[in-house]
């Protein structure tokens, strides 16, 4: 499984079995489906995949933030387009 397939799998799992909202899943699926556009950005793709695997809608709740929330994922998506 390459990194784009891993990203696709992570987003599907969090969308279908977790609490990842559709408005966030859609742009990630678009990244996973556009490998030519994101060639050379493997590090950010891996970062995004890791964030999806540890996505928690309530990551900011409580004393310590040890999960990733929608703000983290939105930011990484932005970096993917900017960098």
């Amino acid at each position, binding site marked *: 499984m390459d990194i784009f397939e891993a990203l696709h799998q992570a987003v599907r799992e969090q969308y279908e079995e977790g609490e990842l909202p559709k408005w966030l899943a859609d742009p990630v699926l678009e990244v996973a489906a556009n490998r030519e556009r994101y060639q050379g950005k493997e590090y950010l793709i891996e970062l995004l995949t890791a964030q999806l695997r540890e996505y928690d809608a309530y990551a900011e709740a409580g004393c310590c933030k040890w999960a990733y929330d929608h703000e983290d994922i939105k*930011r990484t998506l932005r*970096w993917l387009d900017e960098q």
Partner: protein
Amino acid sequence: MAIYLDCNATTPLEPAVLSLVNRFMEREYGNAASPIHDFGTFAQMAVEHARGQIATLVAARRDEVIFTSGATEANNLALLGLTQHGLATGRRHLISTPIEHKAVLEPLAAMQQQGFDLELVPVDAGGRLEPERLAAALRPDTLLVSTMQVNNETGVSQPLAELSALLAGHDALWHVDAAQGFGKQIEPLKDQRIDLVSISGHKIYGPKGIGALIARKRKGAFPPLQPLMYGGGQEQGLRPGTLAVPLIAGLGEAAKLAQRDHATRAERCRAFRQRLLATLEPLGPQVNGDQHWVLPHTVNLSLPGIASDRAIAGLKGLIAVSSTSACTSHTRTPSHVLAAMGLDRQRIETSIRLSWCHLTPEPDWDTILTTLQDLRDH
């Protein structure tokens, strides 16, 4: 240029690691503790990503990875960091083995100076600790057991699974110095009985100056460590200071590659080992350490009739090797590891350690053999 066969001292950088380190050195230079703009946020995300890559390799949680400057600092934190807890609770018994690296033996000796009772359990002639003997040394006041995963001089892996089973019924903390095994022998470090694991970046094709202590929670609580330094509260309050983001990202990448390429790396090392041993066979080498348990990238052997310093000097233009660990080879002190295995002085004084990796090019084996034959005959 000589071929580098001293990979247990340090390894070359993986090209992908170097590329990532450069990226964070040149462009992404934010401070991970200042996530108030994109520079800092990206640095923070890179650190957390690396933490996850390392945690995966040892079946830990991200928050259990404490970055340090290397395995030596991680060992010091794991051992000296328990001093206060031991003194406060009256648990002053420590168990380890005589084949540990100085980065473990010296902090333990420092704890001894503070009133701890240190017991070094002998190893067998093959360089392995004997789990039953170690377990027999356990006492109700045993605070800590510290063992290594793989010996740096012999490459012999230690029986962590057996020891884990024997420690299951005791609440002593268990520290494993995994400087030589992390990323090379993956499964043993996933054992949840191990409380503390020290790892190093530059032994797994990552940068020098970075390592980590894995401090595994037990029933939701961290091991009762106290910091050795103060000033910032980073790393769960255990290791203050601005995080070395480029090195941390490099260590994370190295950990990822160690997992992904584990089988192919090991296979290349095994093939190299066969050629090396076949080359040296005419010299009648005495291989040190139980070869059944040795990792494929190391061989420690004694060459009868050739003192190790002569062998190292004679081979200098062909291959770069050492006689003991990198941290003691400059002192010309005979190997404390081989001595603990009960080897005689002559065998120790003719021993050399050769260690390689998947990036090692093929040396000129024929010239190596003739050079050593000349040394032996003159």
